[in-house]
């Protein structure tokens, strides 16, 4: 084989391989996943100039213009407590108490990283909109085709893969320092059609 062909082959295959690796490592893990707290994953360096090139690239793709962790911690869930991918056709249950932060919200996003269209324009549940039991515990139904009872917190999630972002605005100091051990709501699958 002519040497020019070998050089061309090396460049083409090498470039394709390099781009494939970039695509692979930035396509997964949401905005960084080196901190794991139950189903919720986050990164300590999101938004900060100390961010490594991998986290920075992922945040650019999946959470552009995210704030640093003292201001906001963004936890992402892409799987349920059994490790199965979240699917909008299934019904999930989020249960917990208010996390330690000034304000929080839980929002569902489609696999394209945008809000999921639905007839009621329901996209999120927040500290101010959530309905709580007398004990302070709240339950949020996520996904499933039909809306649950009127009095239930519900975030519809389309009919395909989705993910959830839990935002903690001005997290308490213990959460900001140790986001791996923050007390966060639990997420588990209830049923699938």
């Amino acid at each position: 084989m002519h040497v020019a062909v070998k050089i061309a082959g090396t460049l083409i295959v090498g470039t394709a391989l390099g781009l494939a690796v970039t695509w692979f490592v930035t396509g997964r893990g949401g905005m960084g996943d080196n901190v794991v707290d139950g189903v919720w994953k986050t990164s300590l360096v999101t938004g900060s100039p100390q961010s490594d090139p991998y986290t920075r690239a992922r945040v650019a793709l999946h959470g552009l213009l995210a704030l640093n962790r003292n201001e906001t911690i963004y936890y992402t869930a892409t799987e349920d407590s059994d490790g199965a991918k979240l699917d909008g056709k299934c019904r999930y249950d989020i249960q917990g108490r208010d996390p330690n932060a000034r304000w929080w919200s839980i929002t569902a996003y489609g696999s394209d990283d945008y809000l999921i269209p639905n007839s009621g324009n329901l996209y999120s549940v927040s500290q101010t909109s959530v309905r709580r039991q007398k004990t302070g515990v709240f339950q949020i139904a996520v996904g499933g085709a039909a809306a649950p009872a009127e009095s239930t917190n519900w975030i519809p999630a389309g009919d395909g893969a989705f993910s959830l972002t839990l935002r903690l605005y001005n997290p308490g100091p213990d959460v900001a320092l140790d986001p791996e051990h923050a007390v966060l709501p639990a997420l588990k699958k209830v049923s699938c059609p």
Partner: protein
Amino acid sequence: MNERAQEWVFWIAATILVAMIVHLGSLYILPRVVMMRAFDRLGAVNAMHVGRRPTAASRAIVRPSPDIVYASCPYDLTKGPLRVTAPVIHTSYWSISAFDANTNNFFVKNDQQTPADSVELIVVRHGQAWPKLDTAVERVILFSPSEKGLILIRAVVDDDKHLPAVEAALHQARCGTVASAPKLR
């Protein structure tokens, strides 16, 4: 090892080397490319753009929060320093932040850290002079790591009935090069 095997090892090693360079290079430019694309979508530079409360139709920036109204000012400091003035909303979480061309969040201040009713940012490059302005508001001088960047204001809408007031306050925010910025008084 025979000659043929040696040659194979050489070309495979060369391919892996090219792959590594392309991988690291693409990883390096990816945030900049994403930021420039966002830049083009957000509108004119050195001007404040107040968005609508995000819905499923909002596709300018990934993963917008439906509980927040955003105002943004893509800036370019080649024509001089940037001046941003904004009312501070104290009824719920509010913050003003700055991002460089590499997507880094290099500045953020929230309503609890800003007791004043309004805030003024002067954004400059290192070595760039800024005019001494005589205004009585809380002023922050910001050194931008890059010529281009983005100022982003977030205001949480914790109740639908607060939406009009939040939007009205955001619409009072201004952004422009210092020469063209309106006088505050």
